[in-house]
């Protein structure tokens, strides 16, 4: 037998252990699943603030005079429209239109882009972009140079503001600045994966432990809590955000995943464009929709979905919604049946349990 590769760890690993986090193997990374409990952490983020170590996420940087052209060619959204200091959700696609990954593109300058990508996809993404680099750009996988924290929740701004001279309120949603946190140079982006206001910060790993404890101390008066990947998943599910490997993967296109808004077919050539043009003409055959359980039970990831007693689709992500106190999820259905109010059944341990399709996001912040 081949021994399994040791789990990768972030610079915060010792802290997670010391603080008593329950750890989990997440795509080859030994990451905190929870500290005080998923429900407790989830509620902290909805009502106060939460701090997440998401340093497993990867970073890819594209530099050079052709950086805009290359970034535009490998992603689906309109890179030419980005201003320096602006970020954009986007897709990396294969020629056939399926997802390589979903990414956050940050424009640092006309000749420098900073991509935040999924942990387990980073090498694949890098190869994909490097292969497409027929121009004179430099493409670099720079994940080792960054710790990434997410500070999320209605009191995230107040917590983080105590640690930086920058006016955080002046950073608009999906914009970023290069500033400092607790005296450490940091990229501060007003982005997130929870459905709340908040920030994602990127800085050199050697400062990880101190910045972590400084943020927790600064946020203590506001009720900040350290959070794990468990709450990150329930939060993003309520916000209706896609997770690679669930809502999106190599055989799913953005149109099917209800992500048509990140596809700009009129922007010029990009990888996957012709497949998407063809799919737009022909129409999609399956589509992602939200659902909530009406019968007793929790529809979970990969459970089968029935329509009129016949297998018709699958749950991409499902579970309890702590905020709504319902069991919710997203599922793929034949596109002609993927309308709101459609009655469906989810097969839970060999029993068909009633559910109904509902609008996504399930949760929208009120501020």
């Amino acid at each position, binding site marked *: 037998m081949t021994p399994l590769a040791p789990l990768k760890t972030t610079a915060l690993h010792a802290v997670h252990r010391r603080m008593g986090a*329950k750890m989990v193997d997440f795509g080859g990374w030994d990451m905190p*699943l*929870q500290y005080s*409990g*998923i*429900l*407790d952490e989830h509620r902290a983020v909805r009502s106060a603030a939460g701090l997440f170590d998401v340093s497993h996420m990867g970073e890819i940087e594209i530099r050079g005079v052709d950086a805009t052209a290359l970034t535009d060619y490998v992603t689906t959204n309109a890179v030419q429209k980005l201003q320096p200091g602006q970020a954009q959700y986007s897709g990396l696609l294969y020629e056939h239109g399926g997802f390589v990954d979903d990414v956050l593109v940050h424009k640092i300058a006309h000749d420098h882009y900073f991509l935040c990508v999924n942990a387990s996809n980073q090498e694949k993404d890098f190869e994909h972009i490097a292969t497409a680099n027929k121009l004179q750009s430099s493409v670099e996988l720079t994940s080792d140079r960054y710790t990434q924290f997410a500070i999320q929740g209605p009191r995230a701004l107040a917590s983080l503001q105590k640690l930086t001279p920058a006016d955080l309120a002046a950073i608009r949603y999906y914009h970023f600045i290069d500033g400092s946190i607790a005296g450490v140079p940091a990229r501060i982006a007003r982005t997130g994966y929870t459905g709340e206001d908040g920030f994602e910060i990127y800085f050199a790993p050697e400062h990880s432990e101190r910045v972590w404890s400084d943020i927790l101390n600064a946020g203590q008066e506001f009720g900040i809590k350290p959070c794990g990947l*468990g709450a990150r998943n*329930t939060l993003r599910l309520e916000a209706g955000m896609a997770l690679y490997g669930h809502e999106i993967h190599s055989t799913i296109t953005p149109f099917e995943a209800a992500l048509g808004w990140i596809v700009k077919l009129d922007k010029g050539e990009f990888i996957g464009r012709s497949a998407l043009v063809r799919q737009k003409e022909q129409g999609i055959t399956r589509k992602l929709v939200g659902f909530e359980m009406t019968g007793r*039970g*929790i529809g*979970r990831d990969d459970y089968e979905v029935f329509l009129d007693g016949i297998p018709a689709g699958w749950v991409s992500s499902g*579970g*309890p919604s*702590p905020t709504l106190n319902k*069991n919710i999820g997203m599922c793929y259905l034949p596109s002609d049946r993927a309308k709101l109010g459609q009655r469906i059944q989810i097969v839970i*341990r060999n029993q068909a349990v009633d559910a109904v399709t509902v609008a996504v996001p399930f949760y929208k912040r009120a501020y």
Partner: protein
Amino acid sequence: MYPQDLHYTKQHEWVRLSDDVGVVGITDYAQQELGDIVYVDLPRVGAKVEQGKAMGSVESVKAVSDIYCPVSGEVIEINDALATAPEKLNESPHGDGWLVKIRLSVPAEIQGLLSAADYEKYVAEETGH
């Protein structure tokens, strides 16, 4: 930490016996491993259950876990409170968070279960502590 009057299984269930009726639950270790419990699926009153077979499930936010029947018999009562308050399993796994009461059909099965001390030792070995 594990009550002396309970009998335990390696699947992390317990039985509290009085005469021929056993109250069944999951252990403190089990609830800790599961995390926040949000849903409990129990057999119906009158169901015949068999030692070692799944008789229901508990679900945490993250995962589903089968409940294995520690003793054979007939279900004579279920803990209805868990339908609306599944968190009782986290708060009081050896008390208010009990699952079902079973009238034992093979009382001798109890002899094969673990004592509190043996169960504690088993958990310690399993977690490497």
